[in-house]
């Protein structure tokens, strides 16, 4: 069965495959998420690949991408410019993937997106000498 929000990872080089492999190692099953790497692709070729995926999967759909200022995010935004229910979310990491897999079956789209963003931001933790940054001594 297709997930309610079909999801595509658009990343630099092998980052997307690495994220899916890591998620599989944690979950025990391969996440139902497609992926496209920008490796070796011209902007037009990457844009065409994303548009082709969006055409095949309908709307709403979610595109997760890595650097907000990179070619992957740019092509993803351009691909969704006339698709008001398609989503681009930059800054993907493993926490975002896991949160998405937990919530995309049962949450309304915008609620889920807010949840994903919060979980991803919360996943950034900094420790110095084993202590949280705010409690560590200079």
């Amino acid at each position, binding site marked *: 069965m297709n997930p309610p929000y079909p999801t595509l990872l658009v990343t*630099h080089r092998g980052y997307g495959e690495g994220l899916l492999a890591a998620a599989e190692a944690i979950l025990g099953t391969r996440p139902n998420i497609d992926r496209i790497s920008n*490796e*070796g*692709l*011209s*902007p*037009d*070729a990457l844009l065409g690949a994303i548009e082709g995926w969006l055409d095949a999967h309908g709307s709403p759909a979610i595109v997760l991408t890595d*650097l*907000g*200022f*990179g*070619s992957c*995010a*740019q092509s993803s*935004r*351009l691909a969704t*410019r006339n698709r008001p229910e398609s989503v681009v979310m*930059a800054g993907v990491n493993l926490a975002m993937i896991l949160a998405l897999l937990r919530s995309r079956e049962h949450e309304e789209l915008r609620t889920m997106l807010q949840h994903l963003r919060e979980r991803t931001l919360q996943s950034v933790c900094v420790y110095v000498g084993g202590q949280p940054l705010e409690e560590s001594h200079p």
Partner: protein
Amino acid sequence: MSVVLVRVDQRLLHGQVAVGWVPSLDADRVVIADEALAADAFGREVMTSAAPPELTVDVFTLPEAAERFAGLSGRTILLVRNPAALLELVRLGARVQEANIGGLHWKEGTRRFLDYMYVTPEDVTALSELARSGVQLTALDLPGNPKVDLVAALADGRLAFDNLSPRHP
């Protein structure tokens, strides 16, 4: 001011430029000379909105960029999309002495010269004309990697389209 880098990169302002070249050259400004982007407000917003905040980004048409070339302020990286655009910039009067070919990726009809440089016959023609105009052309994707002298490659035939492999990446 000076233009610290003139670069041909299909992706224009993207990760390699923002994270690789900008800090390496201590650049504080990026000028994108591109007709399509200058005419596309949404595309311009996508390209410029997520740039690092310390970076000034301007998008000009090729004639606008050529007119401003000598007087650009800051430490500027100038980006164009393909060799034909660079040739047009030179023909319009920009005094480009050196240029870096940093990203021409695979598309239908291209042939491989380097992993990050796939060319069409039109690209090779434009590069040849640039070389004849005295522009020093090198291929280099990221600072620190080995440079490839394209003027020499054009002269000895390594960059002749018929000598290149049509293989897909």
